[in-house]
């Protein structure tokens, strides 16, 4: 276990350095990336099993016991997030390699992508507030580079929005760390849990809300989300897909981790529930108003972050279990949908609904690959999104939060509406000429590269698997949520050894 825990951080970093050295050999870069991420996925899965069996796993980096050194901690929540995220990283890498516009043409793609993987893993595993900041920065700098990889005018414009907003939130993060340290004298999360307990509740609350704002920007909750739909759609498809699947969820992870461990609430948190409702509503309304597949999907990211925050805001095991299940489902499905968006762009030459039509006839495979996750996204049974929604609705109604649950159900209807907009706009209708695609003119069937389709199909199957295996997975989420609702276990595992 001690060997396993740091692997997801260390392996990609080592590989990133090596990949940089191999920048003249794209095939070696590709092989290295695939091998490394495969190993990381395996390690993460084994870690998940071990944590499930043996409880929280802790490694003191450098052999320095907490709170002197930095501690890596894998509880069930972290292990789940790690396993899902690394699997997505691997799948998207395969897709990127298969992309005909060769997103990995840049010799910087592979090293940066690996660094992104390391950053995401570290964010999940670290048990230290400042190290979490560092993890965020690793992840963000890699994302800055990836989102502007082509250097086109659009990318640069939207990249600026993304970088500046992220930089502001990073600065606020440092500020928050400073304030927390001023009040407590430590940055170790487990240590903080005890020390924050002793200070004035108003100050404690203000610190919690400061961190909420910091992570809220990354997680794209209302009203801090606006950067996301402006920036994500301009990146290359694989990059957008992995951002959409992972990055905001790292923010959500941080919110859940800090709010449950450091600022646990006795009952439902009104602030979180209100934010959740607004996030859901405003996000979906934004999606409805859009006319481009990636932009629509981007707004849905926002909307669905609201569901996750809703689960947290209930502050019950069921609510948080719902949130965790929702996150897992969302990571897979949202990544898939963006990959499909990329398939549409590759095969039809555009993602604008006004210029797309009749794809169901011309690209039936793509249509099927879209339809399943789209239904899942809208919470239509029997797909994973339904189970996720069901878990949250049950949890909410269980504690009498009918209003916010009502909002969430309305939003899921609007989500369905928005998905039909893509479906009707792009897949239904008279097949039209393909734009800007030299590979398939006329009205014949459209083709996308096999590797891309294959990677997407694997993810679609995965999302179906989540639905089929929803029972055990929800049990797992419940266990993870129980762990989060009992912070003493985490604190004990880190401090008392």
């Amino acid at each position, binding site marked *: 276990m001690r060997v396993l825990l740091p692997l997801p951080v260390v392996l990609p970093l080592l590989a990133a350095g090596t990949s*940089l050295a191999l920048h003249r050999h794209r095939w070696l870069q590709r092989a290295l990336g695939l091998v490394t991420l495969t190993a990381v996925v395996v390690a993460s899965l084994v870690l998940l099993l071990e944590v499930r069996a043996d409880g929280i796993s802790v490694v003191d980096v450098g052999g320095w016991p907490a709170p*002197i050194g*930095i501690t890596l901690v894998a509880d069930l929540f972290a292990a789940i997030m790690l396993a899902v995220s690394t699997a997505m990283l691997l799948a998207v890498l395969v897709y990127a390699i298969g992309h005909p516009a060769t997103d990995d043409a840049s010799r*910087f793609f592979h090293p940066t992508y690996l660094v992104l993987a*390391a950053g995401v893993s*570290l964010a999940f595993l670290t048990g230290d507030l400042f*190290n979490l900041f*560092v993890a965020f920065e*690793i992840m963000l*700098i*890699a994302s800055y580079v990836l989102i*502007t*990889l082509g*250097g086109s*005018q659009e990318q640069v414009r939207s990249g600026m929005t993304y970088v500046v*907003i992220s930089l502001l939130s990073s600065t*606020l993060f440092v*500020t928050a760390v400073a*304030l*927390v340290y*001023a*009040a407590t*004298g430590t940055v170790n999360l487990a240590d903080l849990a005890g*020390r924050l307990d*002793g*200070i004035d509740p108003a*100050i404690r*609350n*203000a610190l*919690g*809300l400061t961190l*909420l*704002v910091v992570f809220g920007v990354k997680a794209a909750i209302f*009203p*801090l989300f*606006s950067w996301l*739909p402006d920036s994500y759609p301009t990146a290359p498809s694989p990059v957008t897909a992995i951002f959409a699947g992972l990055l905001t969820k790292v923010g959500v992870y941080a919110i859940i981790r800090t709010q449950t461990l450091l600022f646990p609430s006795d009952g439902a948190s009104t602030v979180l529930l209100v934010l959740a409702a607004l996030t859901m509503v*405003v996000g979906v*309304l*934004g999606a409805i*108003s859009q006319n481009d597949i990636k932009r629509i999907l981007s707004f849905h990211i926002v909307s669905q972050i609201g569901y996750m925050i809703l689960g947290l805001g209930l502050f019950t095991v069921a609510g948080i279990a719902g949130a965790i299940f929702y996150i897992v489902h969302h990571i897979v499905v949202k990544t898939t949908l963006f990959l499909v968006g990329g398939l549409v762009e590759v095969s039809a030459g555009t993602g604008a609904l006004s210029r797309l039509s009749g794809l*169901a*006839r011309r690209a039936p495979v793509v249509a099927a690959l879209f339809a399943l996750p789209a*239904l899942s996204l809208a919470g239509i*049974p029997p797909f994973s999104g*339904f*189970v996720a929604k069901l*878990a949250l609705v049950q949890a909410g*109604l269980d504690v009498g939060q009918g209003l916010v*649950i*009502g909002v969430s159900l309305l939003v899921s*209807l609007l989500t*369905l509406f928005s998905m*039909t907009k893509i479906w*009707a706009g792009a897949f*239904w*209708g*008279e097949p039209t000429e393909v734009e800007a695609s030299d590979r398939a003119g006329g009205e014949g069937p459209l083709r996308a590269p096999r590797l891309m389709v294959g990677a997407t199909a694997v993810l679609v199957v995965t999302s179906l698997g989540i639905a089929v295996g*929803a*029972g055990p997975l929800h049990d797992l989420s419940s266990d993870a949520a129980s762990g989060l609702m009992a912070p003493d276990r985490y604190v004990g595992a880190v401090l008392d050894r």
Partner: protein
Amino acid sequence: MLLLCALAPAATVVWAITQAGDVLDGRPVTEQRSWVPSLGVELAFRLDGFALLMVALVSGVGVAIFAYASTYFSPRPDLGRFAGLLTAFAGSMLGLVLTDNLLVLYVCWELTSVTSYLLIGFEDTKAPARAAALHALLITGAGGLAMLAGFIVLGQAAGTYTFSEILAAPPSGTAVGIAAALILLGAFTKSAQVPFHSWLPGAMAAPTPVSAYLHSATMVKAGVYLIARFAPALAPIVIWWRPVVVGVGIATMLVGGLSALRQHDVKLLLAHGTVSQLGFLVALFGAGWEEATFAGAALLLAHALFKATLFMTVGIVDHAAHTRDLRQLSGLHSSLRPVAIVAVVATASMAGLPPFLGFVAKEAGLGGLLHEGSRATAVLIGIVAGSALTVAYGARFVWGAFATKAGSAGKAMAATPIDQPGAAILVPAVALTVATVVLGALPVLADPLIEAAARSLDPRVEGVHLQLWHGITVALGLSVLAIAVGAALFFGRDRVARTQERLPRTSSGTEVYQATLAGTLHLADRVTSVVQSGSLPRYLQVTLVTLLALPGVALLGGPGIPTDLPIAENPLQVVVAVLVVGAAIAAARARRRFAAVLCLGGVGYGVAVLFVIQGAPDLALTQLLVETLAVVIFVLVLRHLPERFSETPRRLSRLSRIAVAAGVGVFTASFAVIAGAARREPSISGELLARALPEGGGRNVVNVILVDFRGLDTLGEITVLAVAALGIASLVLSGRSSREAGAAAHDPDEPVPAGGHTADHPRTEAISREGTPLG
């Protein structure tokens, strides 16, 4: 392909028959698999009498529909898709009626909505079909979500999601009322009850087999199914249940009937008729009275048989005559005689004429209601009125589709030319008609099934039987009355039409739906244009205002700013602070890029001195070096840019910027001192200081922290630096490669340089006084 798919419902029929013995004897067949037990989702199935009736309906009519569809469509490439969707629908519908778990029921319910969406939009190149598909999906979807909430409320009140257990021992309390209301929303939308009925006529954009199957025989019965199941249990508990459900049913029956009389498209006429009949069913089941329930079960069967048949005939007419407008159809009674006969029989059943099944069912219903005494009077009146309308629109349908119409100048209208269809297409319709006739004539054949169905809904159903002839009864009298009024309405159809014209037009459900949709779209645009302004300054402002609004406000409730703070620890601190503050303000006010950068440098050096005063030499060194190198990098970039900041109109007024800035400043400063004063325990640094030399092997504790205690931070940090370097290289190199590409072939997409910054016009003097360039 389609015939092959018919094997699936056929197999279901066979299976149902094998199970029928037990079920008819009142022993439900059950089966259970686990799915998400922690959420109460169990794949529990239970075949009781009512389920058996529904299964028979879904799969029996299903076989007919598949057979019909196989001849209905001319060969086309997407028939496979059609067959798949139709099969998927049939499966979902079977699941819906078979499951004994409310949540699984919801699953199937939504699946039928989705397959319905895809089937209505099957002719996806036609915009009306797409719109109708969406309409149906949104209405039934909305209702479905309400129903889900209702299920969960109910399930949580009952402690189980097992349907049969809840019905056996229904919970009580306000929660159940809420649950009932929510569930009814689902049922009403699905079964096209007023005021949610508008989607069903629209759904006629679907190919006729779909209309026949989903939108008359099966899917739209799902709501009825739900009401039938719940009514016996909930009607006694929820006080408003009976008036609301029955009232809605009657209203729907009347509204549907009246609308049917207005239609010119015979398919739409049937659709409105379906709405009306669904209302009838809801009224019968909704009361939760035993005999009405029994009658409802019978009508359910009868309706499926005659309405599917009628749709099939409409499809044949449509294919043959290439129109469904009754003003253009004429003389089909002779050119399509077999079709006309089938249609007439089915219509007669619908209109409740003996000796068909429809009559038997209606008689049972009227009789049952009469047994309920005075409390059912209003219901009876409504149903008789509705039945009269049914007779009228039934006649209108037969006349409209098949009669030879009066043309202009008193002559008969010329017969509509037709393409004579093959005989095979009529086979399924004939089969269903035979059932209508046989079961009408020999109701005893259907009686065990109907009785078992009714009894599984309400165990109190006892000793009720289907009969063709009850003797001269009040019920028969009411039937005769209805037929007479209906006939009068048909023959006075011109006057009826004129009267309907004169009635004030209330806004129809479709208009409300469309207005809601448009309103939602507009709202979405408005909201989005506010929150998603596209302006970076606005986003930043929102972020910072949120900071003030959440933690800022929370801080106001705290202990306040401590009063015992020292002004400074060292007089120099004050001097340097003043310097830093001054340089910061100057940086904020500077109008030229380099001036701002130099002021920033001043701030950086000042901060370095603050670090020195604070006792942080490493930090001071780092700050000094970083600041210097930052200035260099600034220069490397800014040398390309114009000397002065462009003063383009700003989105945010100066005042609002100052306000936010002041707020943020006050917030951080006060939070800093408040947080500092809140400290109760010493920091962990005592340990660090103590262990740095003996265990870390270094005297510079900061360095030991960086490379040892917190080496992971440092590892991350250099990763950030390395990737930043890659990013810089990537950006600059992308510029170079695009420039090279541009040199090779002048790229027209490359933006033309903004005016004033061309090579011939060197930018304004760099070194000059603020204000005038050289003064």
